[in-house]
């Protein structure tokens, strides 16, 4: 057993992290506020160049063929840096293309030439190999070339609806673009049944990893602030009210990251209780990300309530990710139906 990142993994991560801090610092979220896409096309392609979407994709499809725990570590980084853009949809979209044997599409998605946005079914509808219909939230799907839909039964790629069928909605998070659309029966261009590959499981790993990364980032931000901000002639962190709040955040982050990694390894090692582990990861990470962001705001005082400081961006992103791929209430309900952990 080894749940710690290897030297090689750490190197890979530091490259990604450097790219994000240099090329897509958090301030870009504010700079691009009024734009259709949360991320610039050239920037997106540059991220694809260093393999941000294709780390786990087989080499024959242009990927790096790394195990899922590598991807979990990468997405934890993307989450913690509030990276804008449809990363999960892109990574899974390339996988759907690959699983369908469409090497060309996998390559175009992996290189950033074609974009994949996410569609989340809201209310009644249908997602299957022959047709997709219903009302969907479109997440970071502006200007995209494909829509990704993920269910327990399988995953699909669809052509995006015409612009006039899409209604834009202001998202809670300034780094996420949201829209809604109602699709009449549409046939997917690609379909991967769960028996071939469980993309829903990978989606849970990647979203839990991003949430865990968010929880970690706000924990670090708050601890740093507590150590440097002075009131009453001493750093505010000397007060137990502040110190204990920081400690609670660190514990929540550690729990979230550990469980997200445990879940990622559970998928690759095909553990029997994999579903249990995934659901636990999503639930723990979702709550940690929201609670830590809320504490982080509180510990920043007046500054925490501003739009200029980053703290609220973490809170808002956490709420978005918490509702992707599985509703928090559904995660808990399903977790209870599972047998005990192995």
């Amino acid at each position, binding site marked *: 057993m080894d749940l710690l990142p290897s030297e090689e993994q750490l190197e890979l991560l530091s490259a990604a992290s450097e790219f994000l801090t240099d090329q897509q610092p958090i301030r870009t979220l504010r700079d691009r506020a009024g734009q259709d896409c949360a991320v610039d096309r050239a920037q997106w392609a540059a991220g694809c160049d260093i393999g941000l979407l294709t780390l786990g994709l087989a080499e024959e499809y242009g990927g790096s063929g790394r195990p899922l725990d590598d991807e979990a570590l990468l997405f934890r980084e993307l989450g913690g840096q509030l990276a804008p853009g449809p990363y999960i949809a892109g990574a899974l979209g390339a996988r759907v293309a690959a699983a369908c044997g469409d090497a060309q599409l996998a390559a175009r998605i992996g290189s950033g030439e074609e974009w994949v946005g996410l569609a989340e079914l809201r209310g009644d509808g249908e997602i299957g190999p022959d047709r997709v219909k219903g009302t969907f939230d479109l997440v970071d799907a502006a200007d995209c070339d494909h829509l990704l839909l993920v269910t327990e039964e399988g995953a699909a790629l669809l052509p995006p609806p015409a612009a006039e069928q899409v209604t834009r909605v202001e998202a*809670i998070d300034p780094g996420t673009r949201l829209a809604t659309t109602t699709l009449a029966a549409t046939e997917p261009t690609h379909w991967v049944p769960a028996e071939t590959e469980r993309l829903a499981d990978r989606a849970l790993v990647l979203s839990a990893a991003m949430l865990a990364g968010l929880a970690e980032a706000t924990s670090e931000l708050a601890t740093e602030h507590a150590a440097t901000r002075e*009131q009453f*002639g001493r750093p505010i962190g000397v007060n137990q*009210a502040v110190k204990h709040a920081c400690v609670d955040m660190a514990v929540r982050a550690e729990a979230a990251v550990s469980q997200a990694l445990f879940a990622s390894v559970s998928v690759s090692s095909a553990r029997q209780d994999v579903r249990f582990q995934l659901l636990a990861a999503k639930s723990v990470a979702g709550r940690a990300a929201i609670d830590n962001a*809320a504490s982080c705001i509180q510990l920043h*005082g007046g500054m925490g*309530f*501003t*739009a200029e400081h980053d703290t609220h961006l973490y809170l808002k992103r956490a709420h978005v990710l918490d509702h992707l791929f599985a*509703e928090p209430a559904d995660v808990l309900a399903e977790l209870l139906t599972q047998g005990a952990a192995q």
Partner: protein
Amino acid sequence: MDLDFTEDQLDFRERVRTWLAENKPRDPRPDDPQGVREFDLAWQRTQWEGGWAGISWPAEYGGRGATLAEQLIWYEEYAAHGLPSIDACFVGQSHAGPTLITRASAEQKSFHLPRILRGEDIWCQGFSEPDAGSDLASLRTKAVVDGDELIVTGQKVWTSFAASADYQELLVRTDDSGTKHKGITWTVCDMHSPGIEVRPIRTMEGGAEFCEVFYDEVRIPLSNVVGGLGNGWSVAMSTLAFERGTAFTASQVHLARIVEDLIDYARDHVGPDRRRPAIADDEIARRLARARADVAALRAMTYVGICRSMQSDTPGPKGSMLKLHYADLHKDVSALAMEIVGPEALRRGADRHEQGWVGNYLHSFSSSIGGGTSEIQRNIIGDRVLGLPR
């Protein structure tokens, strides 16, 4: 002990109800500083003309001079009518005004108090600075006496409504030779004075309701100082207590409305199983019921506090318990709403004045920071109410 109101008080409630129903503003409150200013002042003027302005102010200063019970009734009815919180007029009404009443000279009172009541001026509070928030007494904005003027240089921050305000209650340091609580001076500052620059700061809920205020050699007549040079700390403290007086009733009634609105929402909207209404979900139902119970207790606490104030003039440190408990409940209820609305939580939706649940949630973060953080309230309660060793 009893919960009965007298005939007179019941009659008072009737009159408040009728007047509010007939006179409350019908238009939505604008979002821009100028619009907010005009809207809030117009509503203040209406209250003045109706004889309701300055509900807690003594009659000799033009106020209504209402008893504590009547104030409670006024604020309950006010909030029950879904009226806008007094926002831009808050500092003038409930902070600077009462400070002037307790500490200002006859001349200062006769100039400012009628203007506040008649809805002519907006006031803001210039206390916090970048390095002086919880530790307010360490403030550094400097004022030097020059003839019959103060020359002020420095910076304030998080000043709500500074962009709409005419006057500011300003705390400055006139002497830094002694301990930090000494050498602070409370002065009225004309916000239109040369040398003042106001920069609005956007908040996480999207509005621009607070500001940074920069002072570059701003000249303020010495006659604007209230309570004498160097006595500003005690002047400021004489009214911090007002923030937790009866005016707080409105927030509590407002929170009770939020809970009831949320219960209605949970009845009318589908819940986590996508079939039945949200309220059919056991966990949601219990948490909503608990919120109802907690808010009921918050009202009882308010009543007890008011009864206590009836017996002694100064609202004691127990007022901090109300503020703390309110902040906790407001945040809990608002976070619960985010769970009940499910994926609707992704949508920014209507602004908080229209009671969007997302807007309400984002707004709730201010309740444990503004007016003194919850950590500081806990310190105050631990020290002054419980008498724990420091």
